[in-house]
């Protein structure tokens, strides 16, 4: 396997997530390089979304570490009750306990979408995008309430940028509609636009093509490629549509029952017997 020369922007080392006695993610090691599109696949319940949640700070991994742009931002090792209950590997390897809340992770440039779309239901399309820009505004609540000059300027800039972004994802026409009134496919686009509004360097997409027909998936594929170039992103995506994954990912990781069973280029993965067995089911 050829060594990737680009710098690593996201690295998971030995990430293990254990809920009670269930190991949802078992010793996952994964690298995302700059401008790379990486796929994370596996059958239902393989622990893909859990891995996402470990990266974004929603869950605290039981063991292992997450590095963003070469810096360890999350690290944990089995503690307390988990010390005895821990079933994973590399128990003694990590010693620190660094946690990070999801909003901090986002501020570090990691944005995500959700498997089951989580738009802000009571808000319009443009408001959904503007919310994501809130973290970058600097005016205090006092100034913002009383519409200081700075607040007005920031608000205006925000609105303009959001409009720009919406144009890029073909949602400008719908900007004043309620987010929930959009058709399903557009809601997916909006979720991605919203994630982009946080100015990420790494984008995590959780099943962006779920529920789409082949034509839509195809469009989405192109769309993802386009935003990667346009926004200079590195992308890690979970997907079931093999067509999408194989079409755009440069590197693919395969999970099954929490464990990492293979990684490699699309061609390598397609030829890997373990993967085929995981998907088609071997002899039980």
């Amino acid at each position, binding site marked *: 396997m050829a060594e990737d020369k680009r710098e690593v922007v996201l690295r998971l080392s030995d990430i293990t997530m254990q*809920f009670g006695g269930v190991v949802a993610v078992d010793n996952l090691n994964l690298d995302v390089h700059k401008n790379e599109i990486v796929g994370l696949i596996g059958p239902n319940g393989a622990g893909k*979304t859990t891995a996402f*949640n470990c990266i974004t700070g*929603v869950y605290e991994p039981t063991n292992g570490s997450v590095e963003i742009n070469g810096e360890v931002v999350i690290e944990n090792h089995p503690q307390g009750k988990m010390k005895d209950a821990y079933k994973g590997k590399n128990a003694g390897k990590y010693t620190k306990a660094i946690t990070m809340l999801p909003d901090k992770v986002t501020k570090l440039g990691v944005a995500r979408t*959700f498997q089951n779309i989580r738009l802000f239901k009571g808000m319009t399309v443009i408001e959904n995008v503007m919310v994501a820009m809130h973290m970058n505004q600097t005016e205090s609540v006092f100034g913002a309430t009383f519409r200081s000059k700075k607040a007005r300027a920031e608000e205006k800039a925000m609105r303009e940028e959001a409009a720009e972004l919406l144009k890029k994802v073909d949602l400008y026409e719908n900007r004043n509609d309620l987010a929930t009134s959009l058709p399903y496919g557009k809601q997916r686009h909006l979720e991605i636009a919203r994630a982009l509004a946080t100015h990420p360097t790494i984008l995590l997409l959780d099943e962006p093509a779920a529920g789409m027909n082949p034509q839509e998936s195809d469009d989405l594929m192109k769309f993802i490629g386009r935003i990667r170039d346009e926004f200079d992103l590195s992308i890690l995506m979970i997907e079931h549509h093999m067509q999408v994954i194989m079409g755009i990912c440069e590197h693919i990781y395969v999970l099954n029952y929490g464990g990492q069973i293979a990684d490699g280029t699309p061609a390598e993965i397609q030829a890997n017997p373990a993967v085929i067995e995981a998907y088609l089911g071997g002899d039980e």
Partner: protein
Amino acid sequence: MLQTWLPYILAGIAVGGQYALIAIGYTMVYGILRLINFAHGDVFMWSGLIMVYLITVLPLWASVILVIIFAIILGTTIEKVAYRPLRSAPRMSIMISAIGVSYLLQNFALYITGGLTKTYPAINFLQKTVKIGSATTKMVTLITPILTIVLVVLLVMLIKYTKIGMAMRAVSRDFETSSLMGIDINRVITVTFVIGCALAAIGSVLYFSNYTGINPMSGAMPGLKAFVAAVFGGIGSVPGAVVGAFVIGVCENLIKGAGWTTFSDAFTFVLLIVILMVKPTGLFGEKNIDKV
């Protein structure tokens, strides 16, 4: 030393047992519907109030049975009318509905009683004075904890070993999946309310035999305290609620005994906040993980 504190401990155990009987209703309903049934304390108050009226025409045993039946009907009707239609509505709506029902029950009681305190009928057997060591107290003080424990053991057995008990556990664990498995959710919820209200009615007989005045607000404080007991023990856990109730009952009386009477009610809430901070799942509660 014990001589001095015995009366407080006895009173605490008695009132704790009565809180426990109310708390079970809270904890079971919360376990299944994730709803703080604010009206539960008022069902308890109404049980007491109905007893006052029934006893004037019926013998004691018949009144007690009718009171229990009344509480069950009231509780299940509230569920059917005020909670069931809102089951798929946001969580806040159903809680507001519960508060509204509580407001209605209190005001209706206010209207019926004319705002006056009614004296609970004397049940001689329960109100007989007995002497334990240095303390003199009512018979009900001794009967309450025993009866409470017996009822709780029966209830725990029901939940553990019967089919409906199994269904209840399943529903409290996972509402959607249970309904997919063909469990009749509505029946489970109704049974939950039946059990909760019946116990509250029994609790009302014991409680009001001990503290014989009933007014429209009589249910509010015991209700809140019972809910705190349920949280303390770990919401959804029946034994937890009982332990919580006894702890609250005893502590409350010891605090009064220590001369901090101003803060006897406030203490319950301090306890609530401390437990929520330190162990939000309560003593026996289980942690559940949010799905993202």
